[in-house]
């Protein structure tokens, strides 16, 4: 008796419908300027999600995302391009979209560290900043091709992060977290007193240039003018899709199992041969690599780096995205990054109360849905595979 539940695939339609609705909603939210409309739209979203949850419509959506991940992943890429196309000449919105994409890459890195291996990292923004400083220095003083600067930023973040390996391996839980907080403070002080790296004022970052194509020029195709951020959007999408596939494959492999088992019970994992240090190091370095790579591109997008942009508070925001989205679920991270980055940016009236709002949202979240917006499903190594 092979349960019918296991054999039949969930329909694609609920997932595709939800994706279409979410895309349309996002476009509306990004397009509207009037504060009262934005507040109205946000309330609509909250009510809609609660109602859908109450009516039991969310479960079919998540099932179709599990069973048709490749198809829906492809559709999500199309949806992202649709959003970008809609705002093709709007610098502000495109910058916001690029920010969402790169923050998602960074949280995917944090997800490998904390979501899978259970290694807390409260210096996420610092590693992001190391990437950005890398592109500032390399673009200004060297002829390194800019496409290579991105992985170099990642490698540099990973290797500077390896300074933390010894303390992180020797301590557990909260103590390891304190080590990363100390690192974040030290790095910031180092950058502030270091005049070669611009000191507290920071430095310019030259825009990306690939084969003579400058990303900082606006684009004209026939009569349509595109914002220069379109190039960065495409580049960020490439990075995000790559990071997403990497994290997906990592989770759906023996390594994903290793990381989970060391997070859940180090002693038991050790009794079954798991080399604890090796896998903690792997997760920490790989995560910082993703964060640094995203940071390197983000530096070029913003055109400017300063110690103040990569503070402990920013690290907390990255961490809160992880909690909100559903630890260990990359899809949840995409949704949560949109919420955490876009909402405060659109709601100019609450800017001052941003952190207050965060705190309230997270307390509500931890009380009502501690596993996050989209809880992580059980591992399926090869989603199409049936016993």
């Amino acid at each position, binding site marked *: *008796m*092979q*349960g019918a539940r*296991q054999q039949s695939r969930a329909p694609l339609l609920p997932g595709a419908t939800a994706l279409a609705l979410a895309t349309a909603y996002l476009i509306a939210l990004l397009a509207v300027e009037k504060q009262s409309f934005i507040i109205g739209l946000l309330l609509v979203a909250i009510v809609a999600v609660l109602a859908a949850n109450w009516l039991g419509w969310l479960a079919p959506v998540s099932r179709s995302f599990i069973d048709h991940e490749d198809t829906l992943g492809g559709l999500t890429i199309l949806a992202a391009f649709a959003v970008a196309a809609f705002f093709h000449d709007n610098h502000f919105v495109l910058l916001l979209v690029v920010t969402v994409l790169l923050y998602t890459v960074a949280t995917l890195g944090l997800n490998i560290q904390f979501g899978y291996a259970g290694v807390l990292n409260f210096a996420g923004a610092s590693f992001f900043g190391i990437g950005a400083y890398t592109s500032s220095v390399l673009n200004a003083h060297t002829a390194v091709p800019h496409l290579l600067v991105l992985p170099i930023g990642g490698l540099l973040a990973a290797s500077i992060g390896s300074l933390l390996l010894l303390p992180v391996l020797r301590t557990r839980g909260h103590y390891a977290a304190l080590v990363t907080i100390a690192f974040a403070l030290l790095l910031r002080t180092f950058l502030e007193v270091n005049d070669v790296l611009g000191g507290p004022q920071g430095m310019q970052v030259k825009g990306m240039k690939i084969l003579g194509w400058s990303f900082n020029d606006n684009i004209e195709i026939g009569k349509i003018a595109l914002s220069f951020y379109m190039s960065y959007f495409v580049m960020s999408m490439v990075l995000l899709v790559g990071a997403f596939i*990497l994290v997906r*494959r*990592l989770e759906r*492999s*023996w*390594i994903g*199992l*290793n990381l*989970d*088992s060391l997070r*859940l*019970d180090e*002693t*038991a*994992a*050790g*009794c*079954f*041969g*798991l*080399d604890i240090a090796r896998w903690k190091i*792997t997760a920490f370095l790989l995560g910082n690599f993703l964060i640094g790579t995203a940071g390197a591109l983000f530096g070029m997008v913003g055109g400017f780096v300063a110690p103040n942009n990569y503070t402990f508070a920013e690290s907390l925001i990255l961490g809160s995205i992880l909690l909100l989205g559903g630890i260990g679920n990359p899809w949840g991270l995409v949704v949560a990054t949109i919420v955490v980055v876009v909402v405060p940016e659109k709601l100019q009236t609450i800017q001052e109360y941003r952190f207050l709002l965060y705190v309230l949202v997270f307390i509500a979240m931890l009380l009502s849905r501690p596993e996050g917006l989209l809880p992580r499903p*059980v*591992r*399926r*190594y*090869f989603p199409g*595979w049936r*016993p």
Partner: protein
Amino acid sequence: MTPLLEARGLTKKFGGVMALDHLDLAIAPQEILGLIGPNGSGKTTFFNVATGIYGADEGRVTFDGADVTNATPQAIYHAGISRTFQRSRLSLPLSIFDNIMIGNHKRLTQGLWFNLMRRSDLEREFEASYRAARALVEVFEPQLAERMFEPVAGLPMIDRRRIEICRALIGRPRLLLLDEPSAGMTHDETNELMDDILQVRDANKDLTIIIVEHEMGVIERITDRCVVLNFGRKIAEGPYRQVAADRHVQEAYLGVA
């Protein structure tokens, strides 16, 4: 015959407490040895020292002739010793299959490149592992084999015990250490579990087992020989009926009459 596992003068102190006090213990290949004694007599401590969770203060442990005193848990697992825990230590959010695969670590390819890039090779390894895990679970409970990708968190205690034993067996160890497999289960469930363990052993005659147990019916039924501990020392040794009749053993369990 040379013993498979041998402890000589094994001592472990916790502060002033001698958890193991110059313990000598040997188990022959293919034997089922019962390790019994009152609470706090050092049974679980012996398992923890033998599997490298605790270091020994004095003495030696040899496994198949090689010195494994103070070896890491990882090295001891690779040498061929697997265990279960007194309090179930499964990874509750993970599936049955995942939990069993934790015990299969030494048979799984661990390289980063293999796992990320050679997905079709990984799929073959996954399928072979799935078949092996399923076959093992079927010995214990065929219905459980239909639920391999469900989280362990939703299962009753007896199924969790079964999975823990499957996790210890999947790597085909030569020595299996069972730490109170009957804890938290009813009499009937315990008997069922013991039948399954004996069935596994009948299929694999090379398997040697040390079992810590308070359920004397279980000990009587499945062990070839017993070692009785009290205050970290061996106070009796022999077939169950013999040690049960031993005056020292009765004193240890019941207090001096």
